[in-house]
């Protein structure tokens, strides 16, 4: 690793000030858990001149209910998400997704904010948040701006964050609090494996008509970024909840996905997985809806 100037900041204002000062003339990277960044810096030819450590930023550490919804600070670790009573109660899918990221050691360091900023298409933190229509709160020189998560990702390892900006908060909007959601990952091993495909499904149930309301399906590792399966969602909206409808939504979701072949799996195998995981994620969300009824 080549050397750099190191700044440890006490909060997000401090971080933004350091970014503003150095991002014009230097290549600056933000470090939180470091599980992705350090692995990258050790092997990447493009080293930053300045590294800003936000892992101790006091205002980015909490999981709280606000007027906007459920706010998760950028440096909340995957382990903290797994253990958070409010997340386990409202969004078990989010806790389950955190549990399949890396291993204990990486979950204790790695942060949800970092998982999103790294923007790897196979990230396990993304699909559940995408299905819950999460909003990203970005801190910059002019204050905060909000971007829907599905507009936050630009491509593999690319987001809308500018050099002087910082992912500060992840907000699950109030209208989706407690929305039944299910996440599934298919990897080649149980531990430390990247997803071949991952999927999250979320919907409310109109129990009188027994229909899907506001169905949302998100898929990872099947496109340059985490995507919504919009055609499958449109098919389900207002439709009666049946096993056949869920299976058909899975088939339609295959058309929403654009997977590639690589050394982990072929595109065809991934397409099959999209169908199966979408159906099972819908079934899981429905089971949760029934349990919560």
């Amino acid at each position, binding site marked *: 690793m080549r050397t*750099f100037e190191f700044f440890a900041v006490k909060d997000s204002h401090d971080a933004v000030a350091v970014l503003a000062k150095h991002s014009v003339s230097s290549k600056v990277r933000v470090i939180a858990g470091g599980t992705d960044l*350090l692995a990258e810096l050790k092997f990447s030819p493009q080293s930053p001149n300045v590294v800003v450590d936000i892992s101790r930023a006091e205002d980015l550490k909490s999981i709280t209910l606000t007027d906007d919804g459920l706010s998760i600070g950028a440096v909340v670790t995957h382990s903290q998400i797994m253990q958070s009573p409010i997340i386990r109660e409202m969004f078990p899918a989010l806790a389950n997704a955190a549990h399949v990221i890396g*291993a204990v*050691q990486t979950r*204790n360091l790695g942060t949800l904010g970092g998982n999103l900023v790294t923007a790897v298409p196979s990230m396990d933190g993304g699909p559940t948040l995408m299905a819950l229509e999460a909003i990203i709160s970005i801190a910059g020189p002019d204050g905060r701006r909000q971007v829907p998560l599905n507009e936050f990702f630009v491509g593999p390892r690319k987001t809308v964050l500018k050099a002087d900006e910082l992912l500060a908060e992840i907000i699950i909007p109030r209208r989706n609090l407690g929305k039944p959601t299910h996440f599934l990952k298919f990897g080649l091993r149980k*531990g430390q494996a990247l997803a071949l495909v991952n999927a999250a499904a979320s919907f409310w149930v109109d129990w009188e008509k027994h229909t899907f309301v506001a169905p949302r399906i998100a898929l990872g590792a099947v496109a340059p970024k985490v995507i919504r399966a919009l055609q499958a969602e449109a098919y389900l909206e207002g439709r009666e909840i049946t096993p056949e409808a869920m299976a058909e939504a899975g088939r339609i979701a295959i058309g929403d996905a654009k997977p590639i072949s690589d050394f982990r799996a072929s595109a065809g195998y991934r397409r099959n997985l999209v169908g199966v995981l979408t159906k099972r994620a819908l079934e899981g969300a429905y089971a949760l809806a029934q349990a919560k009824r």
Partner: protein
Amino acid sequence: MVTVTINVNGEKRTASVPPETTLLRLLRDDFNLTGSKLGCDVGDCGACTVIVDGKAVNSCLMLAAQADGRDVLTIEGLATMDRLHPIQKAFEKYASLQCGFCGPGVIMSAKALLDENPDPTVQEIRDALGGNLCRCTGYVKMIEAIQDAARILRDEPVEINR
């Protein structure tokens, strides 16, 4: 250079290191605590596992500066001159290691697990060892040793094996 002070194995130690120094390098090169191993250096193998503020972490993925002011426990902090820690003792009894390179990391993962969960299931032990690669043993004897150590730590929390 950054000045880093950590409480390592109960002893406060300070070093001035380049900012890119990882916690692992600080422990090994500056503090001569070479029990934690440099394996993959990217967080896959777990040979560098240490416990920071009660949590098992890959010391190769943490900058030394990020550990400033924190409590760090390494494999050197477990045994005393008189006796091994019950987890180490159990690993010896069950012959849980072969080449031993992964051992310090595995034992620190087990220690962090048993500190939080004194009576883990086999699945919970497997989950706790998910980030520790061993190419010799197949893990079975490690899991047996951790179960045995858990029993000993539960029944006789102090003054064991004297």
